[in-house]
Structures are given as C-alpha cells and as structure tokens.
C-alpha cells in the first residue's frame, strides 16, 4: 500500500501542533525553563514554547508547553483488529438467537483479582444496563451469572465449568502497577491448563481495555469505555453462530 504519513494538526496541515504538561524537579526559574525546553526537544519537538511555568514548592516546577512534532506516522502500515459484530438491538438478538442458535446463551461475569469496581460489569450485565441500553440479564435468550467483585480467577473458572458457560466476561478497572495485565493473563493460563480455552468465548472489558490489547493477551474480544450491552450481546451471538458454521 502507498505510505500515508500523518502528523498532528493544529490549524495547518502537518503543522505538528502538540500540547504538553509536566513537572520537573527543578527550582522555578531560567534553568528549569531551559531544562523543560531541552527535554521537549529530546522528544522530537521543535519550536518549543514554554507558555506557563509555575512554582509548586519544594523545588518542583510545573510547565505547560506547545511545540511542533517533527515525527510522522505511516497509517497505511497500521492494522488494528476491530471487534467484528453486527449492531443488533436486544429484540434482534433474541429473535436471531431463538431462530438460528436454538438455545440459550450462558455467560459468567466477574471483576477478578482485588478489583472491586463492579459498575462497568454491572452496566453490561444488570437488567438496567447502560445509557438506556438494557443489560444481558434482560435478554430472554441469555442466562447470566454475575459473580461480582474481587473474584479469584480459580473461582471464576470453576463457575464457568459448573454452569457450562458459553462465555466468560471479565472486568478490570484498576491498572496500577499493571495489575490488570497479570490478572488477565493468569486467567488465560488457567483456562488453557483446564483445556477450556478454545471451547469458551473469553471477553475482557474496562476503561483501559481495547480490543487489540485483549487479543494480544489471548482473549477473543475486548471492550472499552462507552460499551453498551447490545454490542456485547451481538458479538457473542455472532461468534457462537460462527463457531456453529452459521454466517450472518
């Protein structure tokens, strides 16, 4: 493919305009300003303007900077997997599931590890749903087991086996020290050890989850901020039908 280089845009194509802010452990003054400028230059910015600098006390200085990025990215070279799913609504999902799949879909959901943030998972699973879009519990063709917060991966897998789940839905919100990555990876390892990885659809969600990250970690799909339940339901149904060889 033809290369397609892009640069940031302020008000003129390829002007490279960028805004930065950060703190340096340097006393406010000319040296701090020059240090900020050099740092930005070492980040491939030119025309660096220190538009604000403020003493934060204790020998720290805060900066707001504008500059022009000299780098460009070739987007013809970028291939990002995107969740492939139709945009069915609840009614369509139910009808198609009923007619084509002919059985109920069972899912197990949990916030794993020490994560106690249930709001995102509940938004997908609970009756009430999210932004006026009903949650999976409300779907006649879904059976939902929501295990809630701080669930060890072992418990989650055991439950999935117990109810013979079609899919596992994991939520991870806390990302400090990349705890979400280890939690998510450990679950894949567990499922593989149980020989279950291929027979179950594995989904991750959370504010820092993207589909590409999820796929990289060995998941079938990932859902980030703003996800509504019908997207997840549509994806699941399509995937299950696909696995049965039914293409829609």
């Amino acid at each position: 493919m033809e290369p397609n280089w892009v640069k940031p845009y302020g008000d003129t194509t390829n002007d490279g305009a960028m805004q930065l802010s950060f703190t340096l452990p340097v006393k406010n003054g000319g040296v701090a300003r020059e240090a900020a400028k050099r740092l930005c230059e070492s980040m491939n910015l030119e025309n660096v303007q220190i538009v604000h600098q403020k003493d934060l006390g204790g020998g720290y200085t805060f900066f707001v900077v504008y500059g022009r990025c000299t780098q460009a990215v070739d987007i013809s070279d970028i291939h990002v997997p995107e969740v492939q799913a139709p945009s069915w609504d609840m009614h369509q999902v139910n009808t198609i599931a009923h007619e084509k799949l002919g059985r109920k879909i069972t899912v197990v959901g949990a916030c794993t590890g020490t994560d106690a943030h249930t709001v995102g998972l509940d938004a997908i699973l609970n009756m009430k749903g999210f932004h006026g879009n009903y949650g999976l519990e409300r779907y006649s063709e879904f059976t939902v087991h929501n295990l809630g917060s701080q669930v060890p991966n072992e418990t989650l897998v055991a439950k999935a086996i117990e109810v013979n789940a079609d899919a596992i839905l994991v939520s991870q919100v806390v990302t400090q020290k990349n705890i979400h990555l280890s939690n998510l990876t450990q679950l894949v390892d567990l499922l593989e050890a149980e020989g279950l990885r291929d027979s179950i659809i594995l989904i991750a969600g959370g504010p820092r989850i993207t589909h590409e990250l999820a796929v990289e970690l060995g998941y079938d799909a990932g859902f980030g901020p703003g996800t509504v339940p019908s997207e997840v339901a549509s994806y699941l149904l399509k995937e299950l039908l696909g696995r049965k060889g039914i293409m829609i």
Partner: protein
Amino acid sequence: MALKLRVDDKLIVRAREAAHRITGEVQGFIEQHTTTSTERAVVRLFGVEGKGLDDVPLPNLVVENIQDGGGLDKGASYWVCNAMARHSLSAQEVAQAVGHGKLDLIKVAQADEGRIRETAHLIAQETLDRITRNRQTRSGFINQWGERPAPWLYIIVATGNIYEDVIQAQNAARQGADVIAVIRSTAQSLLDYVPEGATTEGFAGTYATQENFRIMRRALDEVSEELGRYIRLTNYASGLCMPEIAALGAVERLDMMLSDSMYGILFRDINMKRTLVDQHFARMIQAQAGIIINTGEDNYLTTDDAYEAANTVLASQFINEQFAHRSGMTDELIGLGHAFEMDPRQEDGLLYEMADALLSRHCFPKAPLKYMPPTRHMTGNIFMGHIMDAMFNLTSVATNQHIHLIGVMTEAIHTPFLHDRALAIENARYVFGYARHFFEEFDLKKGGLIEKRANDVLQQSVDLLEHIEHVGLMTAIAEGTFGRVRRQPTGGKGLDGVVAKGPQHFNPFFDLILKGGAH
C-alpha cells in the same frame, strides 16, 4: 424571569436622554459630511465590482476620479448616474471605463438633475430589493428551522485561507456553533480599500472580500441544510472601509457585523470624524439588511480595568444605541458589546460580573447583547483559562446574554486550533445545559453585592454621560474616557477622506431608506 435587578429606572431614562443629546450634537456634523468610503459604498451598491488599473478596486478609482476633479461634494451617485444617463451605460460599465482611464466623470456633460436622481433611485431600488430578498431568505430559513435558545455560540475561524476556514467553520457548526466569524487579516481595518477575490494567504485571518463572503455564505447554507438549523455568518466592518464592507455584507447575506466607529477610533487610531460619518451610512445599510451589528465596548476592558471602568462600557453602550437609532436601526439589531474581564483574583468577581452583565441586560432589554469571554487575564495556564471560561459561560447563561463569544483556553497563546475550539464548545454546551434555568431560579438579594454594584455602576454611567454631554463626545474621547486611550479630533488615519457635502449632494440610499423614517 427572576434574576431581575432593582435599579433606579429614572437613572436609565437620564442616561438614555444624555446619550441622545450627545449623539445629536455629533449628528449635525455627520449629516453635513460624506467620505470617500461612503461614496465608494454607494458605487458598490450600484453593483460595481472588480479591479481597474494597477489592480485598484473600481470603486476606489471611480471615487478618486471624482475627488481629483473636485466633485465629491455632490456625491458619487451624481457623477456615476450622470454618466449612465448620458452614455446609456450600466454602473459597472461606467466604472470600468473610469477604471481603465477611458472616462473622466467630471468631464461628462451634465444631464438634468431630475433625470440623474431618477436613474439613481432606479438602480438603488434594485439593490435594496436584492437586500430585502436576502432578508426574506434568512427569515425563511429561521421560520423553517426555528431558533436555538440564547446564548448563541459565536465562534471564530482564523486560518488565513478561506478554503481552510470553510472546513473549520463547517466542523464548528457540526460541533454546535450558531454563529461563525471569519477573522480578518491583521490590520485590514487600516486599508483604505476592500481587497478582491478569494484569500488563501492572510496573516492571522482572512481578508473581508465580497468573494470570501460568498464562499463562506454558501458553505454555511450547505451545513445549515445538513443540520436543520440556520448558521449565521459574521464579519468585521469597522475600519476605514466600514460602509463598503457593510454594503458587501448586505448584498451577500451576512447576518451580523462588527460595526463600531468607537473601536476604530480607539484601537485602530482611525480619525473620529471620518469613521463617525462612515458609521452612519454603514448602519443604515445594515438596518435595511436586518444585519445585527456588534459594538466593541468589550475592548475597553482590555486597556482599562473591568472593575473600575464598568461605567465607561455602559455609557458607551447608551451612546452606541443612540447612534444606531439615528441610522434607523431597531433595538433587535443592536448587539451592544460587553465582556467578562475581571481579575480572577478579585473576591466576589463572579457576582460583580453578574451585576454588570445583568445591568446591560436590564438597560437594553431588547438588544441582542454580545458578550465577550475573558481575554486579558488569560495566561499560558490553559487549565486555569478553561475554568475562567466556564465561569464566563455560567455568567452568560445566568444573565441571559444573547451572542456568546466562545472563550478558548489558548487565548493567550495562539488563534484557536481545531481541538481548542471543540473543547471550548464542549465547555459552553456543558455549562449552558447544566445551568439552563439559572436565570429563572434565583432572586437577587435586596441590598446585596450585585444590586449595590449595579446601582453604583449605573449612577457612575449617568455622571459620566452628563460629563460627556457637557464637554462633547470628541473632547471626551480626547480625554481618554474610553479604554484610557486618548485620540484627537484631527488625529488618526483617514481625515483626508472626509468631505463637506455640497448643496447638490445626494445619495439615493439615504432617500429610499429614510423614507420609512428614522430620527
């Protein structure tokens, strides 16, 4: 409507009466004079467009020809229509002949004055009809799509390239803008001609030209259709070419124009006589076209202190209202300017800002007030700037302002980037929605800070107006009354374009427009 001020309404009457007398005193001078730019505007309204020798715009060449021949005291209409009548030419043909040195208007044998006037009235009426049709087109759209509740979001584009401006403007409309202003190239107001054609390289703005007006109007009509809401277009008339640009705005269906000789005098050092005469005709045309004018009192608070000088803003608003009335404008077209410019460190600044904003609202209940965001105290701290803009947005919706200039967090840094504008719109829409009925929800405490402040400012405005009446407006300006800027009656640019009208002077637009009768 609850956020209602209790002020001494007799003071408002006194202020308005003083302003009426102040402008009356100047009006005599105004009506006895014409200017090169006023006459060029007439030529443009006759349909003249394009350039002549040395790439000079035809209207300039026509008026220069007349002025050089010593005939400008009769007015351009006289000479142009004489030539039209004599040679059976259109105005454009006459201008072209003049513009290529093939015709000297002064030398054309003079036809019967009745015949000249008749010719003039005929073509003037054509243009006025076109302007009336524009007005109807606009109301047609508005009737069809309805009007968004005020404050309207007024957003600038300033790329220097009219085609880039179009992209930014259409996206701004999609993001929520109600009014698009195309910023002019720096210092266009000091040019004594209107450039021609489509601009692709302006400095911090795009020239105001008839072609640019057309391009942007078309683009906004397109996006209006797409969105089902009428997007207004505005540009700048103030400056040495005020009446000409006003004429172009009327013809190309602009909806608003910054049009204020006080701005030119104080902030562009344009001669006060010149621009006051210019303003009179500019506003007559705008009145005819249903164009809302915006005045520039907000600028006073960039060179003077907002807390201390609030009365200079209010006093000037009263004066500007009277000038506009004298040009036949109705209140609905008088977008008086003011601004949110108090020091963020001022204790209770928000309450004082509300007081000032409410006072303007109260004194000019029917005017579509133009409310400007913080600019002077904006710094490179974009985070602080963004919340100052939020307080401005709140004040605007809380005091029911009408034309709301979006405040942008990068005000102290650069003209807005695409995302600066998007964040600014997001800010305004959030606050307007989140405080939608603030105005109806509260009563002001009797004797509270807001009421007291408003009464003080009003009293000081009356005092100031009565002083101005005493010394005369021109002397008051020379004293540095407004924005602490001093300008002399004979100083500044453009005085050489002021010409006393002779007894035979006539301007068909004056006759036709004032038929309806303005004071």
